[in-house]
């Protein structure tokens, strides 16, 4: 096991997969950084440092620095994938999906189905998402609810460096399009990472981050850590929480959620996307439909309010679900009736 930052887990996994498979190519805005400038290539290696060093190692045909053209980036990833390559494209900020939506929605996710199962589209689209950087409404959004709503796309949201390794490797080796969502507030997080060059985590398998018998807390990404902190506080009062890290928003590990709720009878879903038509509402509905008899209290969703992400520190903190809010939701359920 090596200790590694979340961002380094990204770049080392990509490098290892590029080393292993000549079909893996990287493309995106500034993935080389400095192209066409006096500073020259690799003056900067990607704004998140998630592609640093790849250009020097693999060259311009496999590390393709693109203009700011999100549709062309995702579209080129589609074409590369249909032509037998394994593109790993970077969209920089998840908020920019809007600029490339057709290629994500009407093309990538639909090829295999529309073409009668005879076509693969092994493309990975990486993007940094989420609040916590005071980057305001157009650079802070959690977009997984939109992408999960599109049949054909797999949506991955790692919450630890180890999960970045296992899930990104799985994504690159997967024959379907995968949206790989990296939380920008986690890039500096350090954690143990398995050394096995074939370590993968299959999609649709949640991780039990804390075990407890009173309440099931479901989350992912940045907020998973908040849930763990809340669970630790609650444990001091003798309240046991099962904290489930979904890892993938699609496919969804329904079984892990339902099995846990059948024991605890109480559900809190903590999600960074807006409340309407989102993952939290989806999971509450799943539990209401399939584990109603086990419920001791109504499922609770802890999400931001239905507003754009605000800028000021105080406002952004108020916007994001907090450890306090998660703790309060659990206590509310424990006090039910």
């Amino acid at each position, binding site marked *: 096991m090596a200790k590694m930052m979340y961002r380094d887990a990204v770049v080392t996994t990509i490098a290892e997969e590029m080393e292993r498979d000549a079909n893996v190519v990287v493309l995106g805005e500034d993935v080389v950084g400095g192209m066409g400038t006096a500073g020259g290539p690799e003056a900067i290696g990607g704004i998140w440092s998630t592609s640093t060093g790849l250009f020097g190692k693999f060259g311009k045909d496999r590390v393709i620095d*693109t203009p700011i053209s999100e549709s062309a980036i995702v579209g080129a990833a589609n*074409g590369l994938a249909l032509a037998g390559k394994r593109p790993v494209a970077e969209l920089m900020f998840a908020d920019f999906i809007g600029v490339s939506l057709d290629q994500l929605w009407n*093309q990538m996710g639909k090829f295999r189905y529309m073409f009668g199962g005879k076509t693969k589209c092994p493309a990975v689209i990486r993007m940094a998402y989420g609040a916590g950087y005071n980057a305001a409404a157009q650079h802070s959004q959690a977009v997984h609810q939109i992408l999960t709503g599109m049949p054909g796309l797999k949506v991955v949201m790692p919450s630890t460096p180890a999960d970045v390794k296992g899930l990104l490797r799985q994504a690159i080796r997967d024959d379907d399009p995968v949206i790989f969502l990296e939380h920008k507030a986690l890039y500096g997080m350090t954690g143990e990472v398995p050394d096995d060059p074939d370590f993968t985590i299959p999609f649709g398998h949640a991780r039990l981050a804390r075990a407890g018998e009173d309440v099931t807390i479901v989350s992912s990404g940045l907020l998973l850590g908040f849930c763990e902190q809340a669970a630790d506080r609650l444990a001091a009062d003798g309240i046991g929480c099962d904290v489930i890290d979904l890892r993938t928003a699609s496919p969804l590990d329904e079984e892990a959620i339902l099995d846990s709720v059948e024991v605890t009878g109480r559900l809190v879903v903590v999600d960074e996307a807006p409340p309407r038509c989102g993952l939290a509402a989806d999971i509450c509905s799943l539990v209401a439909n399939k584990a109603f008899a086990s419920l001791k209290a109504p499922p609770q969703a802890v999400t931001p309010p239905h507003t754009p992400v605000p800028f000021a520190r105080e406002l952004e903190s108020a916007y994001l679900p907090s450890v306090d809010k998660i703790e309060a939701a659990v206590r509310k359920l424990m006090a039910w009736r």
Partner: protein
Amino acid sequence: MQLSREALLGAYRQMKVIREFEERLHTEIQTGEIAGFTHLYCGQEAVAVGVCEHLDTSDKIVSTHRGHGHCLAKGCDLDGMMKEIWGSREGLCKGKGGSMHIADVDQGMLGANGIVGGGAPIAVGAALAAKLDGAGKVSIAFSGDGACNQGTTFEAMNMAVVTQAPCIFVFENNHYSEHTGVDYAVGTQKDIASRAEAFGMKVWRADGTDFFAVHDTMREVLDYVRAGNGPAAVEFDTERFFGHFEGDPQRYRGPGEIDRLRATRDCLSKFRDSVTAAKLLDGADLDAVDAEVMNAIEAAVTAARAAERPTADDVLADVYIAY
């Protein structure tokens, strides 16, 4: 015009297959047997065939929602195409794609596309893949005059130039984007090729109703791109004989316009006249091809009618998970 007799017959046959495939669809759609939207390529056959005759299966093409001609010219199976348009589970895409989404990657045909302008970025990706493979292969983005106004096409052209991708943007200007004329919708009021030129590409222009003009121009374009000079663009001036979609009453056409186009700008008649005048083929040679094609189309329709229908269970096939 230096084609062998076999090549001439082959090109004519391919154009005739597309023409009769589409004319037959036009008839069959009236019977209600074919569901959904169908956009006919009739009139533009010389472009698809003149371009694709130069390609093999490892060259890729990306098509439009008027894609039947490109698919057939690129080698997609006639019966499989007909069955797909009929919605059969024996169709090229098992009845999941229909007219607008036919693909056959094994033939280098990366899909028709239901989204105007959706294809060009995909073609750039396929061209980047070809560049990686380094075997002088190319990727072709077929786009209409409508798609030339989409930002995706602009993004794709710029990215192809920046990355020196062996991508050829083939613009088929049939003068109508849906129901709107090119003189109105293309702001340069001039041509599409000049736009591509502005992105830094070498461009060609030719009469898209003249098979030999298309074929010869494409040979030059392909020689240039296969030699590693980066992307290129070519604009073919062509004609669309039917409406935007089947059922379009075409009230935007001028009086007698379609009759005039069919009389003067029909690529099949022009091919016939040209090869017989030059005594390369005679009328009997071409009539024999016509008869053979009519039989093949008849057989494809019969097979499509008799082909197995999909069932409700097939809805869940070929998605990674069914919720």
